[in-house]
């Protein structure tokens, strides 16, 4: 099976304090993978490294055997809802059309075919009727679906989602996860930073358990065990003491 993501010996730090230490793993194509771990474990940092948004201190990252730079238009990113300005003067459909930009290139404008495609993506997430609304008028779940539709519009090979289920209603959560599973079945790779442990075992094929270091990575059955999880979640206290001593 083809390797989608390969990370080896990854180190990342912010102003000298380490956020990720010696992280290595590979993810095969066509998997739905959850990144879990306690607060401050470096989950979002890992996602940002995979998107080339922050510099790594050392290590290698390859996506489908290529560098991130070569793959940047083939990766879709669904941001945390809290990072978006919901008062921005933009409608639902225009937000989805943004997803066509990476493949358009500079100077070129989206045409009618792009708009039609954006409508289809909106239909797929089940909120086509809201296309003319300003994005702030939608509920949390609907907003998250708009951004998933934007990702679909990009026709990427990989999807990266940052905490997509925070503040989202049950219907939207079910819709989103069923679309993610569909994408996985069609051979796309989907990586989700996830907070809520309760659903993790139903949603994902594989889990990456982080706490600055890679604690465990593998099938859900292997990672989602109390003794494995406690290694990530209890290590929090000694690691804080360790930092205090070193500084």
């Amino acid at each position, binding site marked *: 099976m083809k390797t989608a993501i390969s990370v080896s010996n990854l180190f990342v730090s912010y102003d000298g304090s380490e956020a990720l230490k010696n992280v290595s793993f590979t993810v095969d194509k066509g998997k739905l993978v959850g990144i879990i771990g306690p607060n401050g474990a470096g989950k979002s940092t890992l996602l940002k490294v995979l998107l080339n948004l922050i510099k790594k201190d050392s290590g290698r990252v390859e996506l489908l055997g290529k560098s991130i730079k070569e793959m940047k238009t083939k990766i879709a990113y669904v941001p945390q809802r809290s990072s*978006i300005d919901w008062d*921005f003067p*933009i409608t639902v459909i225009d937000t989805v059309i943004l997803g066509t930009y990476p493949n358009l290139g500079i100077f070129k404008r989206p045409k009618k075919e792009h708009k039609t495609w954006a409508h289809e993506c909106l239909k797929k997430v089940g909120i086509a009727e809201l296309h003319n609304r300003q994005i702030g008028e939608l509920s949390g779940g609907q907003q998250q679906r708009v951004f998933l539709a934007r990702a679909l519009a990009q026709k990427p090979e990989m999807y990266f989602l940052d905490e997509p289920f925070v503040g989202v209603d049950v219907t939207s959560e079910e819709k989103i996860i069923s679309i993610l599973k569909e994408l996985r079945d069609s051979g796309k790779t989907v990586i989700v930073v996830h907070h809520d442990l309760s659903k993790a075992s139903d949603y994902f094929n594989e889990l990456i358990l982080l706490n600055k270091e890679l604690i465990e990575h593998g099938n859900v059955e292997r990672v989602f065990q109390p003794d494995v999880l406690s290694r990530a979640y209890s290590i929090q206290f000694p690691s804080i003491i360790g930092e205090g001593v070193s500084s």
Partner: protein
Amino acid sequence: MMSFVEAIIQYGFLQKALLTSIMVGIICGVIGCFIILRGMALMGDAISHAVLPGVALSYILGINFFFGAVFTGLITALGIGFISNNSRIKNDVSIGIMFTAAFASGIILITFMKSSTDLYHILFGNVLAVRPSEMLSTLIIGIFVLVCIYVFYKELLVSSFDPTMASAYGLPTKLIHYFLMTLLTLVTVASLQTVGIILVVAMLITPASTAYLLTDRLWVMLYLSAGIGVLSSILGLYFSYTYNLASGATIVLAATVLFILAFLFSPKQGLIWRSIKSARKREMHSQS
């Protein structure tokens, strides 16, 4: 109003003043939309003040205003970014430190210039005294800025709305930021004669904010903002001419009055409709 129209037909200086203020209304209105949507109102104020030492330097060196203005404007923008990225100083504070420093150096440099009326005109503008060469440079800057916005509309939209997505797919978001800062210094120079350095920020953010209260679409906001900028310029010039008031200040107050109207009466965002709607809702619930 009739005598104002007659005066325009009759006097060349008034025609030039009107044309120049209309152009300034358009370009400030358009660029202002991006300034307020990116949360850079304070930055706009800073850059416009930072143009002063550049103007003074150009004067002393005998070169065109633009070079000096763009130079000190960009140095200040880079300095602001450098301080807030490399220390615990927050962005608004670093803006305050840098632009007051630039402005102060400008005031000192300008004392080397011949007369103090120059300083007064640079700070507050005097559109009724606009020269043909200045009108032409406003026109050239205006066309350049509008073409840039048109060509890079897509990139400006996505990097303003979702900078993370923009840089993830490879847009140079930092470069776009400094590109916008460059356009901002150009717009400030173009507005020197009309509203002056101190008040140009009003032309940047007030019409754009009025438009922001009236629409949910960026492209509509751009046209509305330009239109509101033009309307403010015409109204301001009319009152300035008729009642012999300072032109820059009158134009700015006209823009403020239009903002207040939108703030109160905007169909979706206006204070009045919003309170009527919530009062109706409460009444409905109390009856049931």
